[in-house]
């Protein structure tokens, strides 16, 4: 008999999602929609509100490596960090495929489900790699403070990189899109939700280094090879707002986001 189709409401966390998987298998119900508390729209399918249950989530998580293989597990776990629309549904299908066919299913690169999840994870990975380079820190009272505005949730991927690179530093990296921040100091770290983020004003030395960097950036380009298109291909403009070399207002700590309600100012003609 086919499983009943339902809409799962959960708290939006990864253990919550794993609990959904657990409940679906217990009650033999197939989720066709997932809702988090932020979603206000209602569904035509019968709703199931799933409580996050750490023990259930653990059980599902432990099954992943055996059923999906090491690669499949990584795709599944990272898939949850991506900005793929309806990522829960794609991951659910991915998981079902894995449970049915075993670890070799990740080789089927032409399958739409595997391909979609793979592409989403690829997007996440490449964005994380780009942010390893494009993130800019400011030194404010001995703490390195940076801000990013990624599409995917890249903080968990950036954490080992920056902690390894600056082992002795205290650093804060704020994710504007998902309102969370990485706080790190030697031997301790946390990724926490952040409501409001206002770093203090930069010191004299910080301003001096920004000035030096801007001047280096402008000098290093060869005028005879000016190629703005190539630059934008490698470094799309959405990264520019957070980068020191493109900021003019260098008394403020970090740039203000352009207000969404006010019209954008075009170049003065």
């Amino acid at each position: 008999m086919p499983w009943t189709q339902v809409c799962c409401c959960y708290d939006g966390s990864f253990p919550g999602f794993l609990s959904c998987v657990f409940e679906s298998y217990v009650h033999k119900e197939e989720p066709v929609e997932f809702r988090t508390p932020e979603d206000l729209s209602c569904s035509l399918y019968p709703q199931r509100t799933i409580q996050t249950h750490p023990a259930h989530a653990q059980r599902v998580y432990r099954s992943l490596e055996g059923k999906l293989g090491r690669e499949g597990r990584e795709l599944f776990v990272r898939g949850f960090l991506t900005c793929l629309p309806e990522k829960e549904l794609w991951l659910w299908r991915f998981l079902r495929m894995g449970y049915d066919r075993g670890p070799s299913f990740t080789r089927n690169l032409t399958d739409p489900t595997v391909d979609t999840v793979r592409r989403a994870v690829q997007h996440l990975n490449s964005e994380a790699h780009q942010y390893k380079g494009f993130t800019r820190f400011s030194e404010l009272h001995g703490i390195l403070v940076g801000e990013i505005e990624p599409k995917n949730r890249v903080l968990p991927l950036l954490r080992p990189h920056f902690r390894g690179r600056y082992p002795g530093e205290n650093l804060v990296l704020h994710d504007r899109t998902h309102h969370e921040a990485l706080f790190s100091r030697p031997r301790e770290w946390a990724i926490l939700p952040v409501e409001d983020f206002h770093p203090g004003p930069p010191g004299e030395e910080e301003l001096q280094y920004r000035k030096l960097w801007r001047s280096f950036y402008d000098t290093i380009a060869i005028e005879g090879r000016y190629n703005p298109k190539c630059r934008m291909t490698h470094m799309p403009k959405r990264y520019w707002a957070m980068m020191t070399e493109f900021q003019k207002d260098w008394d403020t700590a970090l740039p203000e986001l352009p207000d969404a309600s006010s019209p954008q100012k075009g170049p003065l003609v």
Partner: protein
Amino acid sequence: MELLDKLNILADAAKYDAACTSSGLDRSGRPGTVGSTMMAGCCHSFSADGRCISLLKVLFTNYCVYDCQYCVNRRSNDLPRAAFTPRELCELTMGFYRRNYIEGLFLSSAVIQNPDYTTEQMIETLRLLREEYRFGGYIHAKAIPGANPLLTYRLGLLADRLSVNIELPSAQSLSLLAPDKKKWAILAPMGQIRDGISVSKQERRLCRHAPRFAPAGQSTQMIVGATGESDRHILSLTQGLYDKYQLKRVFYSAYMPVSTSPLLPAPQGFQPPLLREHRLYQADWLLRFYHFRAEEILDEGQPDLDLRMDPKCCWALRHLEFFPVEVNRADYEALLRVPGIGVRSARRILTARRVGPLTFEGLKRLGVVLKRAQYFLTCSGRPLRGLHVTEDGLLRHLLALEAPATLSQEPVQLSLFDSAG
């Protein structure tokens, strides 16, 4: 002189050096040090000319005793001169590195007094950086031709990658434009670095704590378009460098008019050969990742690369007997020869076809560029449905794909009011 002015002068003097990457070495950060490196390298920004900025690229000094015609820093050129002190440069590097502006330091230098003295200054800087500032990030250093081999060896122990620029593609051009540099004097340190790397690798197999000599390998660069060498000459030179000296990379730098010397192309109206440089890099990729040999890409009858089309397409058109390639049976090397299939998509094909036969629809999902590859492939013995192309038409189709890159002028929107005449 202020640090800002020095930085401007010495970054400006270094900007023509193309050989600047941060790849080839994985080293994780350790407590007590600052910095790590990544195998793939990391670009921290892109300058207005579209080139990657990964390292703080500066000269130690631009006071030079040589008078190479193609070089901005030649003795006879009248421009502001400056030199860092080792400590200034270390402070600057650490300040930039902590703010994640850069992946490390690229240190080159003009020859001040003599090659030995120059190298000593560079060694002092790098020693300070590594030992006192405990810097664990990437360092790319230029070996100075003519310096004492022992000094070059010490430089290699401090740096991750070394490079020696061979500057011009032939000994004749070198003696014409850079009379102070000799071919053997350039090749000698390259040979020394190659031997140093292999000895260090052997030693480290025996003992974990043996010193690492240039662990990220060596690279070089040459200027293209300043002298009359053919692409065939340049590519076979490149091939030789990869084979004999085990270089990681060869960089090509399109000549920018920096001099009015009668020996060089006149600066007025000179267009740097950027497209040619691009085609050379494409051919270089074929040598390094696609199992091509220089002789295959260009031969006696065809000394220069076709600017209208990439070298792999050109090869495919000259070897139509090799095609079509059957996706479901062909081996990795054969797949790599198909235009539109790269290293990554070839690997994916190998993985995916173990599950079931591939179709053209599936190839698209794998990332194969079908608009190029469709003419050269069959899936289970059948070509793409509805595709009828003659040999002649094939050339036209492929040329049309490259049109935007090879266009000499930007297309302009027609207007009623401009240029009435």
